[in-house]
């Protein structure tokens, strides 16, 4: 007995076999995104009308590069988790659902990798 709860003895971890991992990761990224999204919105707003040099100067600063990378990563992880729920709710055929779930992961990784690569190219 670890925590004495019946849940601790459940072997299959529910119908998705992942327990509360999805729920928990969605909340953790949500909490992280509150300050990060506000920071992103304010930063993007301040660059309205500015030319590329101003944007580069902003993204070249280590603190901004790091925060932007964290924002993008938290956002695409949160996005993948959210879209996964949408697919699981609305896609009924098992085959089509599996394809969509995989494409969903690919999309999140692609967007995340492209953003991080651009940030590294600017900052390094």
């Amino acid at each position, binding site marked *: 007995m670890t925590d004495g709860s019946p849940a601790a003895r459940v072997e299959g971890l529910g119908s998705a076999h992942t327990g509360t991992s999805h729920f928990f990761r969605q*909340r953790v990224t*949500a*909490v992280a*995104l*509150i300050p990060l*999204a*506000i920071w*992103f*919105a304010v930063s*993007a*707003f301040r660059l*309205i*009308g500015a*030319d*590329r040099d101003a*944007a*580069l100067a902003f*993204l070249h600063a280590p603190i901004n590069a790091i925060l*932007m990378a964290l924002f*993008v990563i938290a*956002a*695409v992880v949160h*996005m993948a988790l*959210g*879209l996964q729920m*949408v697919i699981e709710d609305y896609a009924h055929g098992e085959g089509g659902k599996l394809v969509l779930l995989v494409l969903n992961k690919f999309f999140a990784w692609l*967007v995340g990798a*492209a*953003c991080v*690569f*651009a*940030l590294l*190219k*600017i900052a390094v």
Partner: protein
Amino acid sequence: MPEQAKSAKQRPLSPHMQIYRWPVTMATSIIHRATGMALSVGTLLVAWWLIAAAMGDAQYDLFSMVARSPLGQLVLFGFVWSLAYHLLNGIRHLAWDVGYGFAVPTATRTGVLVFTLSIFVAIAVFVYAYAAKGVHL
């Protein structure tokens, strides 16, 4: 038994989308999902902006030109409102997760508050951008 089959067929559908009056909490829930999906498309805009900045002046100018166009402004307004709504309503969801605000009158009140605030924030951002930044279409 045909009679039973007939009565089963005539059962009322609930909720019937055309006649069902949406409670506030139902509307805020579906809008949360819709804005989340819109923000997924929005990540492509963020990616485009960052990649354009990394690539060169011509690419950045193209991004700026599209963003400044009427269609670009409309899309950006949708992005800003979606972000404002999803962020504010997300905080509402997190409050529920730790056990606050579950009473129906409270959830309805916070739902109206979040929706109203999100519209206000989106409009304020654009009014401020046009007025203080001198941005024009």
